[in-house]
Each structure stands twice: as structure tokens, then as C-alpha cells.
């Protein structure tokens, strides 16, 4: 199935793009998606291990299953203020 991945901050530079569309296995969990992203973008792996995922305006948990055609945001550690 296809999912849209949006990277923020340093991740968009380490992965070479803000927005990616990737093929992933059906029923993949968030933790597994993070593993796939780490394999695809080894330069981003250390940051990915400290990042969170959201779908729309909802934070996802490691065991959550990614839905087909989902738009997933990958959120590195934050530094607002």
C-alpha cells in the first residue's frame, strides 16, 4: 500500500525531501514503519529513533497500524519557544 510521509526540520534535509510517497506492507505498524524509514534513509536513522509520528493532528503510538493512503508526519525532537 502507499503512504505519504512528510518530514520536518532536519529530517527533510537528511532524507532529501519534505514529502515522500512510499510503498509499505499492508497492515504495517508505526514501529515497523520507523524501521523501514531508518533502512531507506540511514543518515536520518539516529534522528528517526528519537522522532514521533502523527496522522493529521493525532499522535500515533508504536503499535498503531498505518492505514492505506495515510498521510504520516515524522516529527523530530522539538525546540520551540
Amino acid at each position, binding site marked *: 500500500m502507499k503512504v505519504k510521509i512528510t518530514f520536518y526540520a532536519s529530517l527533510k534535509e537528511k532524507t532529501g525531501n519534505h514529502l515522500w510517497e512510499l510503498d509499505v506492507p499492508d497492515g504495517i505498524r508505526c514501529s515497523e514503519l520507523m524501521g523501514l524509514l531508518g533502512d531507506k534513509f540511514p543518515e536520518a536513522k539516529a534522528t528517526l529513533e528519537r522522532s514521533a509520528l502523527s496522522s493529521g493532528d493525532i499522535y500515533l503510538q508504536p503499535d498503531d497500524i498505518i492505514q492505506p493512503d495515510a498521510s504520516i*508526519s515524522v*516529527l523530530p*525532537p*522539538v*525546540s*520551540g*519557544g
Partner: protein
Amino acid sequence: MNYLTHGILDPSFLEECLKDTESGAEAVFIGRVRGTSRGKTVIRMEYEAHESLAEKVIDGIVKEAWDKWPVRHLFLKHRIGSLEPGDISILISVQTSHREEAFSACRYLIDQIKLRVPIWKKEFYSDSSQWLEETPL
């Protein structure tokens, strides 16, 4: 957008929007871009946000402050985009009847925003740049 802005933040705005003769205390926090960081001269700072999620998370933090303290008025804006040293990145004002709750609520708001809101900043120096990614969500 309610809490994020691309525009300049001006504290004098608080004088016009927060008038309440029953508020005996107003705590204001102003966050500014520092001109030096990690021993390097900062020439500008870029703030980026997941805007819709940041608005939602800030709204939740603001509601928590209203629930925890007897707040009479609250103003909060976080600037995103390109800022220079001295520019205001965040402006918070909390009005309450007494000073203790004003200080506490204001401190809570800035602390929680730094911990929980998907906003990132990138420092630009004369010869390099660096994303500051400090607190995992």
C-alpha cells in the same frame, strides 16, 4: 491560526488587548532570538512548525492553564518563519487577580510549549547552520 503567526510580535499590543481592572497581576514572558549560541554568532533563526498540530497542542496547553489557575485573561503567540537576533519568538501574557498564579501559569505555558509543541528552530551562523532538536515528543 490562533497561536502561530508569521508576523512581528510587538509587546505594546498587550496594552491594547488586555484591559481588566480586576486583574491585579500580569505576568509577561517574552522569548527572543539570542545573538550567540554554542559560542557562535547567530545571524538568523528559522522557525518551522507542523502548524495544525502545533495549534491543537498549544490550545490544549492553554486550556490546562485555564483549568489549573484562576486566569482572567491570557494571550499567547508564537512566531514562525525567519527571525533575527533580538526578534521576539514568543509572547505570553497571563492576567490573574494575584501575582502567584500569574507567575505560575506563565511559567507553565512556556515550559510546556518547549516540551510538547511540534516547532523546530534552525540557527544560521556566518559559516554554517544547525537544527536544534532537543526534546523528543
